[in-house]
C-alpha cells in the first residue's frame, strides 16, 4: 500500500506508510501453528466413523484449518487416535508416533483410546497413554462430533501457548524416556 491521507484530530499522532507489528515470536508462531494443524487420523473402529462424520460438511473440521488430512506421519502435527488399540497394534502406534516430527500433539478420542473403554480384556491396550504421551482425552463411546471439536479447540489452546523451547527442554526429554521413546529419532 502506498501513502494514505487520513484526517484525524489534532492531538493524535499519525503514521504515514507502512508500520511495525510488535509481538513475541512465541505468539506469532503459536498462532500460525494453531490455525493450520494437520491431523493424522489413526482411526481403527467406531470412533473412526464419528471422526469421518466430524470431517463431513455438517460438523466441518476444515474451518479449524484441518482441511488436509495427512496420512504420512512426517507431515502431520496432530495424531488423533480414534478407536480401540489392541496389544497387537500398540507397536505400530508407537512407531507412527515416533515417525512424526516435533512439535506433535496427540488426541485420544473415545473411551477405548483413553482407557480401554468397555473392553477390559486380555487383548486390548488399556489406554494409549501406556505407549505414547497424550495431550487431550475425549471421553465418549463414541464421542459426539461436538466433543471432538471441543478437543480440537483445547489443542489449539495448547499449541498457541506452547513455548518454543519446550520440545528441547530436559523435562520433555525425561517424559519421553518414561515411555521408552527415543527423543532423537
Amino acid at each position, binding site marked *: 500500500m502506498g501513502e494514505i491521507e487520513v484526517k484525524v484530530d489534532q492531538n493524535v499522532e499519525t503514521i504515514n506508510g507502512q508500520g511495525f507489528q510488535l509481538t513475541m515470536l512465541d505468539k506469532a508462531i503459536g498462532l500460525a501453528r494453531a490455525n493450520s494443524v494437520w491431523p493424522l487420523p489413526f482411526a481403527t473402529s467406531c470412533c473412526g466413523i464419528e471422526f469421518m462424520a466430524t470431517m463431513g460438511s455438517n460438523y466441518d473440521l476444515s474451518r479449524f484449518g484441518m482441511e488436509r488430512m495427512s496420512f504420512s506421519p512426517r507431515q502431520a502435527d496432530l495424531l488423533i487416535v480414534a478407536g480401540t488399540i489392541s*496389544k*497387537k497394534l500398540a507397536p505400530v502406534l508407537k512407531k507412527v508416533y515416533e515417525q512424526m516430527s516435533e512439535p506433535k500433539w496427540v488426541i485420544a478420542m473415545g473411551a477405548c483410546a483413553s482407557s480401554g473403554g468397555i473392553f*477390559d*480384556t*486380555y*487383548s*486390548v491396550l*488399556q489406554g494409549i497413554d501406556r505407549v505414547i504421551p497424550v495431550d487431550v482425552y475425549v471421553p465418549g463411546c463414541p464421542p459426539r462430533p461436538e466433543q471432538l471439536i471441543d478437543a480440537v479447540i483445547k489443542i489449539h489452546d495448547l499449541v498457541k501457548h506452547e513455548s518454543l523451547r519446550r520440545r528441547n527442554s530436559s523435562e520433555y526429554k525425561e517424559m519421553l524416556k518414561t515411555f521408552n521413546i527415543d527423543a532423537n529419532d
Partner: protein
Amino acid sequence: MTNSKLTNEDVFAKLKDTFAEKIGEFSAPYNLLTIEVPAADAHSIIDWLKKEATLQINYLTVLGAVHYPEDKGRELAVVYHIHSLVNNFRIRLKAYISTNNPTIATITDIYAGANWMERETFDFFGVKFNGHPNLVRILNEDSMDYFPMRKEFQLEDATREDKDDRYFGR
C-alpha cells in the same frame, strides 16, 4: 424355518441309513436338526451331505467350538452349522474331542471358507485340524502361549495393575 423342502425327520432318516451307528440321537432344539457325530467321521459325513443330490447341504454357515471342562474325555465340542440354500434346510453337527488329544480332520478341502474359521477355533480353543494348510493363530498375537477361550482362563489381562478388583465385583 419356513418353506423348507426337507424335514428334520427325512434328513435324519437318510443319515441314519447311510451312516448307521455313527449318527447320534435325533434332536431338534428350536427346530434345527442337531446331531452328534464321531470326530473321526465328521469329515466324511460333511462331504456326503454336500454331494448327496437330494439334500445338497452345501453352504458352511459357521464353524466353532465350545469348551465343557467338566465333561472328561469330551471337553471340546466342534460345532458345524451347514445350510442347504437350494432346499432351505439347516443342520448342526457336533463332534466331541478330548483336550488330551484335540485333533480333528480339517474340512478346508470341502469348503474353502473353513480355512479362517478353523484357524480361529485353533486360536481360541487349541483344536488342531489335521491337514489344514496354515494352522497358526489369526486374531491373537503369535506370542500368546495359551488358548484364551477355554474356561480356565480369565477375561482380563493378567498383568494389569491399575484396576482394583474389589470395585469391579471380582
